[in-house]
């Protein structure tokens, strides 16, 4: 593979590598995906938990995101139940975050003299995370390619200072810069001929299998149990890690938060299976939010959460 094959306009992985280099140059730590199923890059503790508390933080990472309901058995050229987000979080947000974002588009081959970039109002809210922020959908020639959010609240706590969050929809951006109409036609590795691996080669079968699983097969009895188990585990870890000495520090915020993530994903699966009624739906969302809030409160009592040692 030559460097040209890894150009952001020729390969999906080239796009990812370019964004990683760009944000690394801005002082971000480049993390790897969180090793749990999540609905969006925001759930990664590097965003949710690190957005809380006074400590500065800069990170960027790819996060596979699972939206069981968006499965289309591999038949829709634009919709996937598993896709990649590229997530950037900068706390506090630098004053030139918009300019940095535009420079990142330039870096991946979007010529700002040719393309119409727009910041269109889109206020972000995650009911399950008890989080909200103001910002935009970023449009490139009428297509939403990123979300740009100034976090105001996470896990029910005010963000002080505010973090800026950027979420790039990687498949969409790649389709745009590669000029491809169907996500499965994306060139994944930049190779040509026999050496070419497409997005479809990597993920089409998975989309078909997981669509079947999400809509038809996922064991709902088991999932209901798992939801309750995760909820219980989250609470018990929070209790077990509660401050015991004069330092006042919480000692198990992150393992507890894992269980919150788990509950959230299990809920999404149950929702996709259509076994949660409209009224119940709200109460499940509330239950996850309560866990998120409790984890956020615990995090704020940790060192990384900014709690001073007593």
């Amino acid at each position, binding site marked *: 593979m030559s460097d040209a094959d890894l150009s952001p306009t020729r390969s999906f992985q080239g796009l990812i590598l370019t964004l990683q280099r760009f944000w690394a140059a801005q002082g971000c730590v480049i993390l790897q995906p969180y090793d749990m199923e999540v609905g969006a890059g925001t759930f990664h503790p590097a965003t949710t938990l690190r957005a809380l508390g*006074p400590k500065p933080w800069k990170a960027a990472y790819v996060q596979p995101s699972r939206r069981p309901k968006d499965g289309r058995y591999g038949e829709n050229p*634009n919709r996937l139940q598993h896709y990649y987000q590229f997530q950037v979080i900068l706390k506090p947000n630098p004053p030139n975050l918009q300019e940095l974002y535009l420079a990142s588009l330039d870096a991946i081959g979007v010529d700002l003299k040719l393309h119409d970039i727009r910041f*269109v*109002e889109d206020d972000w809210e995650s009911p399950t995370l008890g989080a909200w922020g103001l910002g935009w959908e970023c449009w490139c020639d009428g297509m939403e390619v990123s979300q740009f959010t100034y976090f105001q609240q996470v896990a029910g706590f005010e963000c002080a200072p505010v973090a800026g969050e950027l979420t790039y929809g990687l498949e969409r951006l790649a389709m745009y810069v590669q000029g491809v109409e169907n996500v499965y036609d994306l060139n994944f590795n930049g190779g040509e001929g026999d050496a070419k691996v497409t997005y479809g080669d990597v993920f089409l079968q998975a989309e078909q299998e997981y669509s079947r699983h999400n809509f038809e097969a996922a064991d709902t009895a088991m999932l209901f149990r798992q939801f309750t188990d995760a909820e219980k585990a989250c609470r018990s870890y929070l209790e077990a890690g509660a401050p015991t000495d004069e330092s006042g520090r919480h000692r198990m915020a992150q393992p507890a938060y894992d269980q919150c993530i788990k509950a959230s994903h299990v809920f999404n699966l149950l929702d996709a299976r259509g076994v949660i009624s409209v009224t119940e739906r709200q109460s499940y969302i509330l239950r996850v939010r309560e866990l998120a809030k409790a984890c956020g409160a615990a995090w704020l009592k940790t060192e990384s959460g900014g709690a001073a040692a007593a």
Partner: protein
Amino acid sequence: MPDLLLELLSEEIPARMQRRAAEDLRKLVTDALVERGFLYEGAKAFATPRRLALHVAGLPARGEAVREERRGPRVGAPDAAVQGFLKSAGLASLDQATTITDPKKGEFYLAVIERPGRETLDVLAEILPGIIKNFPWPKSMRWGAASAQPGSLRWVRPLQSIVATFGPETENPEIVPFSVDGITAGTTTRGHRFLAPEPFEVRRFDDYVQALERAHVILDTDRRKDIILHDARDLAFARGLDLVEDDGLLEEVAGLVEWPVVLMGSFEERFLEIPAEAIRATIRANQKCFVLRKSGTEELAPAFLLVSNLVASDGGAAITAGNERVVRARLSDARFFFETDKATGLEDRLPKLDTIVFHEKLGTQGERIARIAALAKEIAPLVGADPALAERVARLAKADLVTEMVGEFPELQGLMGRKYAALQGEHPSVAAAIEEHYKPVGPSDRVPTDPVSIAVALADKLDTLVGFWAIDEKPTGSKDPFALRRAALGVIRLVNEQGLRLRLNLLTSLALIKVQLDRFGEVSNDQAQALSDSLKQFGVTDLDAQADVIHHAVEKAGIDVSEELTKKINNDVYTICLSLLSFFADRLKVYLRDQGARHDLIDAVFALPGQDDLLLVVRRVEALGAFLGTDDGKNLLAGYKRAANILRIEEKKDGRAYGAAPDAARAAAGQPEERSLAEALDAARAEASAAVAAEDFSGAMRALSRLRAPVDAFFETVTVNADDPALRENRLLLLNALRAATREVADFSRIEG
């Protein structure tokens, strides 16, 4: 005179907030100036996606000097009083005060305080920070390092810089010296984000507007709208197409660009298989683009207009291609929704509606549909519709709510139902009524004419009204979350504009019984139907009586409703339907007022018992209005008022009501005018009553108009308060007979003037 220029440059402001924010800025600044005594000649505010700007013209350079006299204590008063006076007047010693002599009370100290007029610049520097800090954005945020501290500046999106200058046209204006949370006002701004990113200096409004234009920013929203509209029309015309104009969209896109550039894109002809409304909805909602029609037709063209914010180096080719690609993907989605939806019959969607809660206290959509279907079937014969068709429509009318297309574009509800119904071969009336049952939406929407549509439209609205009345969720003040005023207006317009004769109380109580049985009863559909049938057989529409017959109707229908529930429904029918009727009366007033009718006449008609036939109410109000426009009418009203006044005074004096009929023999024995009034009253009342019974309200008014001469003659010559008590009593009863005669057509006491 000097001008103020203020610009607040920020990151992108939501389009929907811009116009209001500009107006708020203008009002807040000018109000604060006026409050401090600074008048101005004119003020105008502007908004673009990135800036709010304000120009206040013709301010004075400084405020007027103020001279104030403050009276102090008496000369020789205790020292404490004197010290207090000096302190409050800001004087160092008594030397700085003068004295005045009050002829009665003696000599007093007087402080003359002269304050020079304040520099306008200073006042602006004092006013502006507070306005910026407390700006009434619908939603605002904190940002950056400053947000670590509580109380940091909030703005709609991060505020980047402030321009604030003040000064006369002929000189270099001065910077208004202030800063807010570390942002210091100056003279530097920026132009278009991509076309002119370099900062530049501005001095005053005139050069500001020009400098912005050079930097590819058109400050005035209305100018941007004009440019977009004209360019859009021209581009369309050049291709033989018509622009489908859309004011809401135009306003929004004008708030998304500082330098509008209109471009045309196209899509494949094959997408035109998708219903035109769905194409428009997706292109509008998701892409904020305009659709086009083939010139002179109603048919959509396979093209759209987009408004970009960039003069691109390739003339917009890449932008157009990009937008086309997104539009194509969206239309593919829409077509997928359409095809998917077609695969499932509307009927097969009903079970899904059983699982969707309409309102926590009013059950599921499925239950609601069953109520509306039963009610529509009952209303159908009253409006000349086939009951079976009406029931069919009502069963299917909400099914499209669970289609993919309506899930994606809620504004297509009804319309998609119609399309899908036609495609599955429903009766044309059924298909049409599925769309029309929502109508009329608002005061200018079309009123359906097909009887089937009318029956279901009425049933839908009445079920909603009665339901929310039953759970006490009535509109209050400006709050009407369930659009109940609109529903009531819909009923009124249907009745009036289609000339429908309906007893509203019967309809609302039929609807109410269904709602309450759903909420509290364990009754089958058949049983509920039997109850409605037997209730209708009684044919009673007087509410008092109606409440009673429900009891019998329950028995007669042979259904198992507890005594307690029957009582409750009896009671509810009385209170809820009556309350709803007065709501209808209020809405009718608004409706007729818009058409020029007097609200007091509507009151005068509703004050009569049993007025629940809205069409007759309207006709009666019209006849009454026409009658009161004539001399006969005016005089009779004057005569009535005179009679009513006399009665009121005498009834109070005597402590009794003169409510009985006059004695004919006694009247005949009295003065000739007395006799002829008595005769005229008998005749007029009988005639008016017969005319009202025949619904001939003009005839009833004519009958009353014959009273004018005898009433006038009576008051001219007859002394009501005669010395003879029997004579007096009978004359008062005559006046009461006049009062009673007018009540055949309306309660004249409610009429003003």
